[in-house]
């Protein structure tokens, strides 16, 4: 029992550091023209003008929205981003199956590695 608890305690600590690291990485501001505001000091996801921001969270090949384990956002912001993307797609502001060509060169925000 004691040994089990010790092992799980170690695992817990590892997970904690991972979470804290993720939060720290997110606070680094992007240096490019397209701004990405981090999860902690984020203002409300804007109506429909923020297509560059929303396009950063979809795949350039399939247009699928990245999950929480890739974007690293917290629960609330992930939900807001997803809802905003879906709304923009249905309203006809954002393409669904691909990423708009103008936003392909944006800084990488998500934790994804593409095949060269």
């Amino acid at each position, binding site marked *: 029992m004691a040994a089990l608890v010790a092992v799980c305690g170690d*695992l817990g600590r590892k*997970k904690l550091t991972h979470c804290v690291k993720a*939060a720290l990485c997110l606070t680094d501001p992007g240096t490019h023209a397209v701004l990405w505001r981090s999860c902690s000091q984020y203002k409300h996801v*804007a*109506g429909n003008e923020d297509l560059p921001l929303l396009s950063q969270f979809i795949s350039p090949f399939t247009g699928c929205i990245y999950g929480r384990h890739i974007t690293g956002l917290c629960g609330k912001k992930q939900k807001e981003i997803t809802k905003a993307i879906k709304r923009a797609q249905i309203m*006809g*502001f954002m*393409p669904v199956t691909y990423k*708009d060509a103008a936003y392909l060169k944006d800084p990488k925000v998500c934790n994804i590695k593409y095949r060269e």
Partner: protein
Amino acid sequence: KMKTKKQPETAAALKRTVEALMDRGAIVRNLENLGDRTLPYKISAHSQRHSRGGYFLVDFYAPATAVESIMEHLSRDIDVIRPNVVKHPLTQEVKECEGIVPVPLEEKLYSTKKRK
């Protein structure tokens, strides 16, 4: 927000829409033209396939009960490709997001439910 077919009668269509809004008791604040562009995907509406459209954004105050009748009226209009009514994003309050809070996993190891 609605999309209109790019034709010389765009002004007439806009005027019709604004008048319909005012008939239902809406107070129009602002009308913006977001430009004409190719739609992100081809949209079929009123037995026609559209690939280019003009985007117009109408700011208005209206009672919540009028939304249904507005949508119904806009869907009947042939010139309007995709009518949409959304809440104004700036009226919603901005909540502070603390980011991902690290949860102590030792507490989640054993369930705290009362067992007989």
